[in-house]
């Protein structure tokens, strides 16, 4: 009688409505995207952090050795990508919690806040490095800044490639925050 009374009042059994199934799907997609972002940002940090090129001959430059920490923007890039990778690994736990319990609202808002902060950090690092990579490729005649890529070829290729993983990570973060917002509004 109690069960029928409960059904009369219109209570549906938990966990089987299409909305909760969709929320669970969103949480699983969130988890997968986080894994992809970890690979992207970690790869970028390692690719930039292991750059080291020494030219075999003497050139017009005083230095004929290029490392990532010669430019503070690249150091910032490596640090930012490392912080974001570490954060993503830690947030995997919260993501798994959201898969198991799709109805948690407070933790999703905390996750959105930290995801936005990490998006800003990642974008700042990636675009500062991109500005310097552009300068390294093209130089600037007006400011008399020489394009160092013409000497340091493999260094240049490495730093340009490291940007790709980072920008992919930015795209994934945008999707992650969007997914969390949609999941919040669907409850």
């Amino acid at each position, binding site marked *: *009688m109690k069960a029928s*009374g409960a059904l*009369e*009042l219109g209570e549906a059994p938990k966990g089987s409505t299409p909305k909760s199934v969709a929320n669970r799907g969103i949480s699983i997609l969130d988890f997968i995207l986080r894994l992809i972002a970890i690979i992207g940002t970690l790869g970028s940090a390692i690719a930039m952090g292991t750059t080291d090129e020494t030219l075999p001959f003497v050139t017009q*430059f*005083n*230095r004929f050795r*290029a490392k990532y920490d*010669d*430019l*503070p*923007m690249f150091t910032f890039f490596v640090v930012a990508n490392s912080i974001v990778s570490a954060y993503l690994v830690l947030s995997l736990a919260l993501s798994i919690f959201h898969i198991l319990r799709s109805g948690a*609202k407070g933790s*999703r*808002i905390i996750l*959105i*806040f930290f995801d*936005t*902060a990490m*998006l*800003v950090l990642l*974008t*700042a*690092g*990636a*675009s*500062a*490095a*991109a*500005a*310097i990579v*552009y*300068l*390294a490729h*093209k130089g*600037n*005649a*007006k*400011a*008399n*800044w*020489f394009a*160092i890529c013409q000497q340091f070829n493999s260094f240049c290729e490495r730093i340009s490639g490291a940007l790709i993983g980072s920008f992919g990570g*930015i795209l994934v973060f*945008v999707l992650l*925050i*969007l997914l*969390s*917002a*949609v999941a*919040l*509004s*669907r*409850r």
Partner: protein
Amino acid sequence: MQNSESTTINVAETKKETKGKAPLLAAPMATSSAVVETKGGYKKGIAIFDFILRLCAIAATLAATVAMGTTEQTLPFFTQFFQFQASYDDFLTFQFFVIANAIVTGYLVLSIPFSIVCIVRPHATGPRLLLIIFDIVMVALATAAASSAAAIVYLAHNGNSSANWNAICQQFTDFCQSVSGAVVGSFVAVVIFVFLVVLSAFALRKN
């Protein structure tokens, strides 16, 4: 005996249920409408704060765009440089900064009506969801423009001995000052955008 007891209880229950259905249904409705009214209050407050923050962000990005777009300095004397005129379009990064901040300002102005709709109807999730989607994209765009310009400004202030890049700020002081100010204004707008995203997410909760 138990059966008869249960049947009498059943009859009593159904009577009570038919009598009490209206209050039973009315009670949750009354509490939910009361809950809706009190919780609608906080959503309306959030929407008003969101509107005010949007106005501040418009001011910040507009100031950054104008400050960067109108920089031009011509040195009155001959220096070791071939060029003694500096303008924002000498640097591709600064051109991207101006364009990106213009886009962000335009988006903010267009999003004011949606913000007003959210104030008037605090429980509509459609406009709020639309706002948060575009706010997230604009956060990324504004941060990209601000930090790439900050990288060039840092180089202009400090130079780089490893790459043999000179610090041009030592010659073009006014240019450097207005460009640095524009970057600062853009970062203020980024912080405001982060607040906007978190506020919209907080107001999106369905209670």
